[in-house]
């Protein structure tokens, strides 16, 4: 990028700048005509100049020019108009000029605005493009938020300046020179005075503004650092809480804000000081005119008429001059900003654009991958790997083992192009890996480490992320959308942006063993199974609440599945595992409240505490006398809870078991019990009744085991349930979704819809067993794809933080395995998993990558040395050097470091 903003603007907008200059020049003609016209109207028709006799006429719109050589050229003879007619005609011309001037202004401003926005788009794109081409080491020194504040905020004023970059000085300079010229014409000496004063202004003001520029630069840097610190606080919030350093952070932010305040305040002071001096100098000139000009006039050396003419000509000078000086201020300001940004983005060894050129097809990498005399160093210059030469052949499986600082992981990073060689190189078939197109290396090699980044979006987006290399199938547009797309392409080109369409299908299905989105599921599922993530995704789906409209056919399938599940459990002798909701029966595994409502509250009438205040509900419960029963029940529950928990400190872990109240509620209920002792329902206030009855709502007999539910009571609750639903007023029907064995419940999770009941508390691993039965049923009923699909919609959050660390590692591995590659490099991808799981996944991955007779090479940096027997060849690293290289059997024989590693 150019070092000077003006050159950058000129390079990219030369044509447009010239065009707008021309338009501005042309617009001056009606502009100056409109100056002259009022005088003509007043002098002519209104004051009667040239209309001396009544009935006199004047020629209007006579267009004839006395041109040299050609003589008189007459375009239009004009028409004769009377005084009144001339008044209207001239007024109409005035109106016409107003409109023409307005339109010119409109056109010029829009054009300049567009010009600026295009340039802004170009700069921003170029900056991001550069980020994409930075060498990996660069990212160790940058803060993401600072870079994004540069791209977003700091270049913003550049766009506004672009339109004025050349037009403004030309225009204002022209005006100022004209005014100066007029003064000169009146009187050379006074003209000289004016010129000298302008010279002083032009010399002093920019000099004073230097300080402003320094301050401006400081303001930019401190603001950028502030953005960086704020994002550090967001990213490091866990650490801040853990170490109670929030006040240190507050102090840091406050002191930064103080500095920014000081800089900005200084800026204001200087800015207005400069303004004051500028104004003063501008006013000094008329002072000199009055003083010196008056003196000369009184002495008779100057004509008074001339003096007045000079003074009136001078009034046109300060305006443009001031604007010109302001323009210069803006210019310097944006120039500083530009330089500040460009400096940050001028990095040595950026990746050549041709290496990243998009390509739909890339050939396979059938050459051996090799490190040639490769040395790697960290930022401080410490050697990580020293002169290692090794060759990995296509189709080979290689385990890399060694101690923590062995260097094997660094070799893997070098193969993954994450660290660039200090000396030596990494080659594929003799070509330097860093000079090969990324379309080959980025597809031929799949690199996975534990350090995974996920983009905000769905699990699916992240899983298929590694397949999006190029827009393979253009999105089809029709009508206005097609026109819009055309406009997008055109605009992108005008601003030097690429015109790839994000809405195209970017997914390389072939690389994922599929032909299109319809048959992608099978390969994806086998990958998810391999990394043992499918269960997690299934769980995510089963826990989610989905609208049946988004997944046609699913609701019917799920309702059918309820029966199938019942049969399946029966067959396995596990029918007691789930207690179903039945309209005419009490479900002992559900709460009393659930049994009573027999539905999910979905509207304001019943949700949360509203149900206790709902008049209809209260009338049903009161009429049947259930309120008294539930009051007594709640009273017993409170008694039991107080008896059990009153002595425990509020932070005792046993409180986890107390599902119907919190530790803080205990003292309140203790008081309530004392107050109501022996008095019962009638003595309690409405609030107290509510507090007590609420407890019974959450009661589950098999879980809490206080022995409060009798057969009669259960029958009664079922009866009240029936009455409640039968008499439900029309306007409340939408506020509750009733449990119906034949209908899908929109407000319940998928799992609850499948179970349509509650898992019995009696079975210790009930929910685990149910899950495995449900997942096999989903599979046999052909619903698995549907459900996994719902799970894949799960939004992983910023940086994938809504997933657990283990899930992130599995997903990271999965997104590499989804793609067909010639080399898979796994750099300790699963450190968070226990050994048994790691073992299983390593075996399964080795099997998966060789499916359908494929033969990719696998390089696996193992944290568990014992697994190296699964590989064709083992590389042993120790303190940055390759110490042993051979088959597992040979190395065991060898009695070297490897044997030590295995036995330890």
């Amino acid at each position, binding site marked *: 990028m150019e070092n000077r903003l003006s050159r950058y603007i000129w390079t990219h907008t030369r044509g447009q700048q010239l065009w707008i200059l021309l338009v501005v020049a042309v617009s001056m003609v009606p502009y100056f005509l409109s100056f002259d016209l009022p005088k003509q109207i007043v002098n002519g028709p209104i004051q009667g100049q040239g209309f001396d006799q009544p009935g006199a006429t004047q020629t209007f719109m006579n267009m004839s020019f006395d041109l040299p050589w050609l003589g008189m050229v007459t375009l239009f003879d004009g028409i004769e108009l009377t005084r009144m007619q001339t008044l209207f005609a001239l007024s109409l011309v005035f109106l016409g000029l107003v409109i023409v001037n307005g339109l010119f202004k409109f056109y010029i401003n829009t054009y300049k605005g567009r010009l600026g926005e295009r340039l802004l788009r170009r700069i921003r794109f170029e900056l991001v493009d550069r980020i994409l081409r930075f060498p990996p080491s660069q990212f160790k020194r940058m803060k993401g938020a600072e870079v994004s504040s540069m791209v977003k905020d700091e270049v913003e004023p550049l766009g506004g300046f672009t339109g004025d970059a050349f037009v403004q000085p030309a225009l204002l300079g022209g005006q100022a020179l004209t005014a100066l010229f007029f003064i000169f014409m009146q009187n050379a000496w006074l003209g000289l005075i004016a010129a000298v004063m302008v010279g002083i202004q032009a010399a002093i003001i920019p000099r004073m503004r230097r300080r402003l520029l320094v301050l401006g630069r400081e303001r930019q840097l401190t603001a950028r650092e502030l953005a960086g610190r704020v994002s550090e606080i967001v990213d490091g919030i866990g650490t801040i809480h853990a170490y109670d350093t929030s006040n240190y952070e507050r102090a840091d932010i406050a002191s930064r804000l103080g500095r920014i305040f000081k800089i900005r305040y200084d800026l204001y002071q200087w800015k207005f000081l400069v303004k004051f001096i500028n104004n003063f100098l501008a006013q000094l000139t008329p002072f000199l005119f009055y003083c010196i000009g008056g003196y000369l006039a009184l002495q008779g050396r100057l004509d008074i008429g001339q003096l007045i003419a000079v003074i009136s000509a001078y009034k046109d000078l300060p305006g443009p001059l001031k604007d010109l000086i302001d323009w210069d201020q803006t210019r310097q300001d944006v120039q500083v900003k530009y330089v500040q940004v460009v400096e940050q983005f001028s990095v040595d060894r950026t990746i050549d654009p041709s290496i990243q050129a998009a390509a739909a097809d890339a050939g396979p990498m059938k050459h051996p991958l090799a490190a040639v005399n490769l040395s790697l160093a960290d930022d401080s210059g410490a050697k990580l790997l020293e002169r290692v030469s090794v060759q990995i052949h296509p189709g080979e499986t290689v385990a890399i083992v060694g101690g923590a600082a062995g260097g094997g992981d660094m070799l893997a990073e070098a193969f993954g192009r994450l660290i660039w060689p200090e000396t030596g190189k990494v080659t594929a078939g003799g070509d330097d890996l860093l000079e090969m197109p990324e379309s080959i290396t980025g597809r031929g090699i799949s690199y996975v480490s534990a350090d995974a980044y996920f983009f905000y979006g769905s699990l699916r987006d992240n899983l298929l992320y590694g397949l999006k290399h190029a827009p393979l199938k253009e999105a089809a547009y029709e009508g206005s959308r097609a026109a819009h797309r055309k406009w997008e392409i055109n605009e992108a080109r005008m601003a030097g942006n690429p015109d790839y369409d994000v809405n195209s299908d970017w997914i390389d299905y072939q690389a994922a063993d599929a032909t299109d989105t319809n048959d992608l599921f099978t390969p994806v599922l086998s990958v998810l199974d391999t990394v043992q993530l499918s269960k997690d995704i299934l769980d995510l789906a089963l826990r989610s609440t989905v609208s049946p409209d988004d997944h046609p056919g699913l609701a019917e399938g799920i309702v059918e599945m309820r029966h199938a599940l019942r049969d399946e459990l029966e067959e396995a002798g596990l029918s007691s595992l789930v207690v179903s909701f039945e309209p005419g029966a009490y479900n002992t595994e559900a709460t009393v409240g659930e049994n009573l409502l027999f539905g999910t509250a979905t509207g304001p009438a019943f949700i949360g505490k509203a149900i206790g205040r709902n008049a209809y509900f209260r009338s049903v419960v009161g009429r049947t006398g259930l309120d008294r029963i539930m009051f007594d029940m709640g009273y017993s529950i409170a008694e039991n809870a107080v008896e059990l928990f009153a002595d425990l400190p509020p932070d005792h*872990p*046993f409180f986890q078991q107390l599902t119907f109240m919190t530790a803080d509620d205990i003292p309140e209920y203790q008081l309530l019990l004392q107050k109501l002792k022996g008095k019962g329902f009638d003595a309690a206030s409405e609030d107290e009744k509510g507090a007590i009855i609420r407890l019974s709502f959450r009661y589950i*007999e098999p879980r809490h085991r206080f022995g409060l539910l009798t057969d009669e009571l259960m029958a009664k609750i079922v009866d009240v349930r029936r009455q409640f639903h039968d008499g439900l007023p029309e306007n409340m029907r939408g506020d509750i979704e009733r449990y119906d064995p034949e209908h899908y419940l929109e407000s319940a999770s998928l799992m609850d819809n499948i179970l349509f009941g509650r898992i019995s*508390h*009696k*079975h*210790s691993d009930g929910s685990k067993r149910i899950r495995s039965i449900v997942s096999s049923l989903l599979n046999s009923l052909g619903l698995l794809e549907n459900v996994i699909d719902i799970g894949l919609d799960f939004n992983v959050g910023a940086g994938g933080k809504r997933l657990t660390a283990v899930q992130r590692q599995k997903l990271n591995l999965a997104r590499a395995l989804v793609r067909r590659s010639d080399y898979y490099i796994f750099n300790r991808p699963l450190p968070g998993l226990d050994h*048994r799981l790691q073992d299983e996944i390593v075996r399964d991955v080795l099997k998966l990558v060789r499916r359908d007779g494929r033969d990719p090479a696998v390089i696996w940096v193992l944290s568990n040395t014992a697994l190296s027997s699964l590989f064709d060849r083992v590389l042993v690293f120790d303190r940055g050097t390759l110490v042993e290289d051979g088959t597992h059997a040979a190395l065991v024989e060898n009695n070297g470091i490897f044997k030590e590693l295995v036995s330890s």
Partner: protein
Amino acid sequence: MGTDMLLKDEVQMLRRVPLFSNVEPGKLKLLAFTSDRVSYDAGEAIFHQGDTGDAAYVVLAGKADILVDSSTGPIKIAEVETNSIVGEIAILCDVSRTATVQTTTAVEALRIRKEHFLKLLTDFPEITIEIMRVLADRLSHTTSELSEARSRARKAE
């Protein structure tokens, strides 16, 4: 709804467990309330060797075998009697399960979660002492079995 599921009955059963015989009934009720009541059919595994230990179990009714994996298949090393505790080692020592416990009859048990169990030990020294006694018993039992096995092995040489 069976009445055998009630807290107060569980308290009675817990009092018969030697480990808790010295604990006052109010505390036993709390223990029962905070534990999960679980039941197993004959032949079901309560937990498997190698699992992470997240709970201890008090067998209220029924019997189970303690099995250890070996190259020739599982070997039975002991039996869990009614009213005894099982699975406490994995919790106390933070290791994975050292053996598999498989029921031989239908079993009713209380499942005490790890954090609850540890809290119990700090809150009630009498339980801690009882646990130590059980563990010491097992150790002396194991020691005598080991010495027997060694002397047998020596004779065989």
